[in-house]
């Protein structure tokens, strides 16, 4: 187990360094200059004003130092939780901007991921049981999985939002509300949350169901299932075992899918103008806010890494094979 976790930690550490470095590097390789953006925004014309503003913003963004020092500073600042200053939302610190948006994204992502995983796996397990269900659920599952996130989101927005008017199609909560602890506010939050959540949930659902169905079929064909059957174990027990074992790759799959679902969340948020990270990313792009984009990416990477790590720990807890040192002999 220690070996397994050590290995994983090494991968995560490496990923983190790579991600941070990439993150730091990319904007510096790109055309475009945040300082110029800031100065241009003020639409000043006089050379002295331009010079002194340029100078000021360069200092603010730490771009006046040698490159290697910028890199080191970047790391140092990172560990202080300082992701720099946003260009677009100057002078808001990037970390604050990101933290403000994170709860919305987590709010749709976590339930969507967990619920789709749980429900998808159950549906998949059921589909593996019945030929009829299999024939119905499988094509539907594949079609849902094949839907572009935003298209499903658009359809939901159009159908339930514009046409039926059941749910709002923009924002995190009604613009007329003051956030507070009340049922009406919670209800409103929920109303705004439903459609983005649903579009994410549905697309992910299909994938899990299909994965589970295939896995269960394989598990049911496995030696231990055959043995149990030969010893007269009821189908229920065999399925239970198969399900249990099929869960393991699905847990790994969950870690692998995080990135994908996150991508979906970003797109979905854009459709529903949900004030989460997705919209932030888009705005950062549109406003050439390198620092914000960097910060958001970094935050996302850290989030995914953490989630992966949690999943790994869960995996270690449920799969005894990772806990014993007996794997890996070659001869």
């Amino acid at each position, binding site marked *: 187990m220690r070996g397994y976790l050590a290995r994983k930690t090494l991968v995560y550490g490496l990923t983190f360094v790579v991600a941070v470095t990439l993150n730091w590097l990319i904007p510096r390789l790109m055309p475009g200059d945040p300082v110029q953006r800031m100065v241009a925004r003020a639409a000043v014309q006089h050379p002295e004003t331009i010079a002194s503003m340029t100078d000021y913003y360069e200092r603010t963004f730490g771009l006046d130092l040698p490159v290697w020092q910028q890199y080191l500073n970047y790391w140092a600042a990172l560990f202080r939780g300082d992701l720099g200053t946003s260009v677009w939302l100057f002078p808001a610190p990037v970390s604050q901007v990101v933290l403000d948006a994170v709860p919305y994204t987590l709010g749709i992502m976590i339930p969507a991921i967990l619920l789709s995983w749980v429900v998808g796996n159950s549906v998949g397990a059921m589909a593996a049981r019945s030929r009829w269900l299999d024939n119905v659920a499988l094509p539907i599952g594949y079609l849902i999985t094949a839907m572009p996130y935003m298209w499903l989101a658009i359809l939901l927005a159009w159908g339930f939002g514009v046409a039926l008017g059941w749910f709002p199609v923009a924002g995190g909560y009604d613009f007329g509300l003051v956030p507070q602890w009340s049922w009406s506010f919670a209800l409103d939050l929920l109303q705004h949350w439903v459609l983005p959540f649903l579009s994410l949930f549905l697309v992910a659902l299909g994938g899990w169901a299909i994965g589970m169905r295939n896995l269960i079929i394989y598990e049911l064909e496995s030696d231990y299932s055959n043995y149990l059957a030969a010893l007269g174990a009821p189908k229920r027990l065999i399925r239970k075992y198969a399900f249990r074992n099929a869960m393991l790759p699905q847990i790994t799959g969950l870690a692998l899918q995080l990135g994908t679902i996150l991508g979906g969340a970003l797109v979905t948020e854009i459709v529903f103008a949900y004030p989460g990270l997705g919209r932030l990313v888009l705005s950062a792009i549109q406003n050439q806010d390198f620092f914000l984009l960097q910060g958001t990416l970094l935050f996302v990477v850290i989030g995914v890494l953490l989630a992966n790590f949690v999943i790994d720990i869960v995996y270690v807890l449920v799969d005894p094979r990772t806990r014993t040192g007996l794997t*890996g002999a*070659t001869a």
Partner: protein
Amino acid sequence: MLTLDNLDKVYKTGTFGTSDLHAVRQVSLDVQRGEVVSLIGESGSGKSTIGKMVLHLLDSSGGTMTFDGRDVTKLGFRARREYYRKVQGVFQDPFSSFNPIYKVDRTFETLRRSYFPQVSGSEWRSRLDDALAAVTLEPDDILGKFPHQLSGGQLQRLLIARALLLDIELLVADEIISMLDASTRIDVLNLLGELKGRGLGILFVTHDLSLGNYVSDRVVILYKGRVVERGETSAVFDDPLHPYTRDLLASVPHLDRTWDEVEAEEAERTQRLAGRCLYHEAVTAQGRSLGEEADSADGVPDGVGLVEYAPGHFVGCFRKAAEERCPAAT
């Protein structure tokens, strides 16, 4: 012809090879032309690893290998190609030895492309016929078929024919019959005997003592990567010295004697050897000192090899594992 001297194999395992797995330790043996040497051991004894090292499918970690006096321990790609002209192998699973998506002919074609690009089609065909005849296969029954259309015995013989297309001097036969049906096994074994008669040296790797006994001139008994006993086949089988060899022989299911009968027969010898280590006795008899080798904490230390107990019959220390003491040490 082929001589292994203190050959070692260490596998790196764990993250970035942080731990070692010593698969083969200090193995020394030789194979001469026109003889079959059987390498006998249970799974994990390192017998196949040795076979693969001889075939350069695995790199050795220590020791040397010579072929006709030339050091072949390390070979580059080109040198290896030349080496393969003289040394070839046949493996355990005949089905896995053929790429299932191609007809069996392709195995020969690969060889031809690689070694005989100049040979004309008809010339090649006649060589092929000769090789097939040598393994008693009718070309028409075989060529143009997919592997799954042939029997394991046929496939194994095909593979031997493939080796014969090159003018090989040494054949490494790695468990070549363990996956065959009893009815065809013997034919393949007989073929080995025949090849031996033509002057080929054969390193026959097997876990089956009765099969080893049947064809081989000399046997090498391996235990956990180490040679524990080696000598003329009859000497080893009739008078096994090492306790492991004796255990092994006693476990073989015979067709004419039950295990109980075998154990009864062996009881006397077991009695005679109780509490002794012939290795140490022989070493002392030769006037050499024992050193610490018998008490070393981690099993038999490296450098403790075999001793010639009787002419041509070598034996190692009786101590089998770290936790087991050498009976002579007490």
